[in-house]
C-alpha cells in the first residue's frame, strides 16, 4: 500500500505550537511544540496509524486534520469532490463548512462525545441539520439506515433514546454513525476503542473496517496500542514529542523496527508465552514536555545509541531506507 500518484490527504510541514505562560496583554515566553514539522500522505481508501506515548502529539495531529485547531505553519492538502488537492489549513467561513462534509472524527470517550440531553436521532442527524442536507423525513431515513448498518437494530427503538440508556459499545457505534452520516472521505479516529471493553473492541474495529471498504473512507487511526494499529492500518507512523520518528508499512515496521524508540515500544508489547525470552530495549527516563525543545534529536536524552553526533546536529530528517520505510535517526 504505497503512496499512489494522487493521495487523498497530504500533510507537509505541519506545525502546531501552543503558547505557555502568556496571559492578558502579556506575551507568552515559551511554546509547546505539540506537532513539529509533520509530513505524510494517506492514499485514497488507505489507512494510517499514529502510535506513540501520551503527550507525543497524536491527538493534536488529529485535531489539526479536522481543523479543530488552526496550524501554526504547514499545509494540509485534501482531495475535493473533483479529485483535486486543496489546502484547507487556514480555511474559514463557508468553504470551511463544505470541507466539514468530507472530514469527520470519532472520539476516544463515547461517554463524552454524545450530548446527554439530545436523543440519538438528534446526535446522528446533527451534521445533516447544520449542513442543511435533506428534509426531515430524508434525514430520518438516512439516520435509520445508518443505525441499522452500525448494528443498532431495530433503528426505531434506538432513535429516540438518550445516550445514558446505552452501553459504551452502542454509544461508540452511534459516534461512528454520526461521523459517516455526511459520507465523508476521510475520518480521524482518536483511540476509538481504548475506552471499550476488550470483548467488544474487535466488533467495533471490524465494523469500522467494513464501513471503510463499503463507503470508501480512509482513516487516520490514532492509538497507543500497536496490536490495534496492526489490525486496522496499512501504514504506521511512530510519533515522539511532536515528530514522526519512523514510518513504514505495518508489517515492515513491526518486524524490522529501526529507530531505537520504535524498538523499545515493540519490545514492551507482552508475548503470551512464558518460554520466549526477548531482548528488552531499555530507554532512560520518561517523556518530557516539548517546551522549546533543544535543537538536537528529540530522543537524544533517552536514546541508548546517542553520542556527540546526535547532540551536535539538528533533529535528523526522515530518510527512506527502502520499502517505504522512513526513519529519522543518524545511527541506523
Amino acid at each position: 500500500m504505497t503512496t499512489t500518484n494522487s493521495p487523498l490527504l497530504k500533510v507537509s510541514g505541519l506545525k502546531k505550537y501552543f503558547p505557555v505562560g502568556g496571559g492578558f496583554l502579556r506575551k507568552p515566553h515559551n511554546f509547546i511544540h505539540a506537532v513539529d514539522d509533520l509530513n505524510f500522505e494517506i492514499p485514497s481508501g488507505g489507512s494510517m496509524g499514529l502510535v506513540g506515548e501520551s503527550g507525543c502529539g497524536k491527538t493534536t495531529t488529529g485535531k489539526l486534520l479536522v481543523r479543530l485547531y488552526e496550524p501554526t505553519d504547514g499545509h494540509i492538502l485534501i482531495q475535493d469532490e473533483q479529485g483535486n488537492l486543496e489546502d484547507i489549513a487556514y480555511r474559514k467561513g463557508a468553504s470551511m463548512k463544505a470541507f466539514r462534509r468530507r472530514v469527520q472524527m470519532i472520539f476516544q470517550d463515547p461517554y463524552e462525545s454524545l450530548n446527554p440531553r439530545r436523543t440519538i436521532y438528534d446526535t446522528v442527524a446533527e451534521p445533516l441539520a447544520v449542513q442543511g442536507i435533506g428534509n426531515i423525513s430524508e434525514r430520518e431515513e438516512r439516520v435509520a439506515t445508518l443505525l441499522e448498518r452500525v448494528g443498532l437494530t431495530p433503528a426505531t427503538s434506538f432513535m429516540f433514546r438518550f445516550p445514558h440508556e446505552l452501553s459504551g459499545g452502542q454509544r461508540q457505534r452511534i459516534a461512528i454513525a454520526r461521523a459517516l452520516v455526511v459520507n465523508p472521505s476521510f475520518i480521524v479516529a482518536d483511540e476509538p476503542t481504548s475506552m471499550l471493553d476488550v470483548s467488544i473492541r474487535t466488533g467495533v474495529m471490524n465494523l469500522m473496517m467494513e464501513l471503510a471498504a463499503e463507503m470508501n473512507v480512509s482513516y487516520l487511526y490514532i492509538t497507543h496500542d500497536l496490536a490495534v494499529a496492526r489490525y486496522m492500518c496499512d501504514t504506521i507512523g511512530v510519533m515522539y514529542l511532536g515528530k514522526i520518528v519512523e514510518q513504514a508499512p505495518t508489517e515492515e515496521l513491526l518486524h524490522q523496527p529501526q529507530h531505537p524508540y520504535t524498538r523499545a515500544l515493540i519490545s514492551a508489547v507482552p508475548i503470551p508465552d512464558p518460554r520466549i525470552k526477548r531482548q528488552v530495549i531499555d530507554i532512560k527516563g520518561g517523556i518530557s514536555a516539548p517546551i522549546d525543545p533543544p535543537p538536537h534529536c528529540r530522543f537524544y536524552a533517552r536514546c541508548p545509541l546517542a553520542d556527540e553526533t546526535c547532540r551536535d546536529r539538528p533533529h535528523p530528517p526522515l530518510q527512506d531506507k527502502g520499502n517505504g520505510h522512513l526513519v529519522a535517526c543518524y545511527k541506523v
Partner: protein
Amino acid sequence: MNNTAHTTSSAPTSLWKMRLRLMRKSLKTGWDIFKENPVGMVGLVIIVFFALLAILHPILMATVWDPGTYDPITGYDFKTLIHPSPPSWLPQPDNPMYKPSFRHILGTDPLGRDVLSQLMYSTRSEFLLGVGAALVTVLIATTVGAVSAYYGGLIDILFMRMADVMMMLPFIAILIVLSSLFQFKMIHLAIVYGILAGFGGTTIVIKSQALTIKVKSYIEAARIAGGGDGHIIFTHLVPNLLPLSFLYMMFTVTGAIFSEAVLSFFGLLDIRMSWGLMIQTAQAAGYLLNSWKYWYLMFPAGLSITLLCAAFYLVGRAMDEVVNPRLRKR
C-alpha cells in the same frame, strides 16, 4: 411500531409526538426524585398555598366581600363610625382598628382596611415580582455565562470583572438609591433586581458550569459537523446549563421578594399595596413597637414574606438534588 424501520411518510408528526413523550418522561423522572425530598415538598405546599390565596382574592371580592368595605387599598368599614357604643369586637374609642373577628379575620389596619384582603391582594404581585426578576436573572446569567465561557479571552475578562463589581455592590443600598431617584413600580424593581443578580454571582456559577461542558468532545463533534458558534452555544451549551439556571431562578425569587419588602418598608416603591407596605403602614401609625398586642398588623405580612422566601429556597434546594445527581442519597 417496533419492526418498521423506515416509516418515513408520517415522519414530522411522529417526530414531534416522540419529543413530547420524551419531555413528559424526563419531567416524570425529575418529579419522582423531587417528591421524595420532604424539604422540597414543604416548600411546594407553601407555594401552592400562596398561589391559592392569590387566585382566591378576586373571587372573594366578586362574591363574598363588599368592595366598599374590603377593598385592600380604599376599603373602610363604616360600622366604626355609626356605632354609638361599640361591643368589644368593634374598634374602641382608644383603638381605631378591628381586632381579628369573623367579620375581619385578620382585623383591619390603622386606616380601617381589611388585613386579610391586603395580604391576599399583595400575593399576586409578589409572585409576579419574584418570577419576573428570576426570569430576567436567568436569561442574562445563562447567556452571559455561556458566551463568556465559550469565547473566553477579552469577553470573559470583561464579564467576570463586571460580575465581581456587581457582587461587591450592596444590593439593598443601591436599590434604595435607585428607587428614590426613579420611583420604581413592581415591574421596574423586577427588572433592576434581575439585572443586578443576573450579571453578578449567578453568572459566575453558570459560567463555571459552562466551562466544564465546553471541553466535552460533543462540542468538538458539533464543530466538526460544521456547526457555528451560535449553534454550539444554543443547542449544546445552554440546554446543559438550563437545569442549573432553573435552580438559581428559585434563589433569585427569594432575594427579589425580600428586597421588595425592604424597599416598601422604607416607602420607596410606587405601589398600591404589598406585604412590605403593610408593615410600613403599621410602623408609620406607631403600632410596630407593640407587636404582641397588635400582632395582626405585623405578623401576617411578616410571616408571608418569610414563608414564601423560604418556600422558594427549599424548592431550590430540592431541585438541586434533581439537577445534581451527586447530591442524591442513592
